[in-house]
């Protein structure tokens, strides 16, 4: 799977990277990333996730070719 992170998450991860681990849903992805960089754990708890330009919830089943976007809380204006 491919991961794209936005905004403050770029301080903790590359803008875009591949994960080949055996991660099957969003909840596990979040845990995995929290372990990869423990400083990001707090903000990851607040993030929303999207696949194919649609929000997905924690139970979404990730497939190998998915690109998963991770969005911190937004603040426009």
């Amino acid at each position: 799977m491919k991961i794209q992170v936005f905004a403050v998450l770029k301080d903790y991860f590359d803008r875009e990277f591949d994960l080949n681990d055996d991660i099957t849903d969003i909840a596990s992805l979040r845990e995995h990333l929290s372990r990869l960089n423990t400083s990001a754990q707090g903000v990851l708890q607040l993030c929303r996730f999207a696949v194919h330009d649609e929000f997905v919830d924690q139970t979404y089943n990730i497939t190998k070719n998915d690109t998963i976007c991770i969005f911190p809380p937004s603040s426009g204006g």
Partner: protein
Amino acid sequence: MIRSAYSHPVAEVEITELSAVPLNVVELLSKAHHPKAGAVVLFSGEVRNNNNGKEVAYLDYEAHQIMAAKMIRTILDDANKKWPLNIAIAQHRTGKVTVGETAVVVITASAHRSEAYQANQYIIDRIKHEALIWKCEYFTDGSHQWGGNCSCH
């Protein structure tokens, strides 16, 4: 592209929800007239020279282009359902925006002014809270801060 109203007679105005170049607030306003609209309300969110006591050099806005644009369209549609608007448009900057420049503009028009004010505030509140647009503040001391609090809440 935004069609500027939902279920009411409409002045068609084509505007991209996101813009990587400076917003032309004056041009947007000059388009926002409608013979049935007695009230036009415009909101311009501009970059202040300071925030939380620190001097701001510029802001940088990042967006998920497709989803942010779609969310802005949805917010405008919702406003058009809630109020009888003749015009409802919104445009948000992406990229580097310097002090005094406009980061976001919302224009609403309706027969009576109460609806135009209410809808305008509704649209900007939802854009600020929901749209996938992130602000990073760059200060003159060289530090930066990803938004959490927006510059004009």
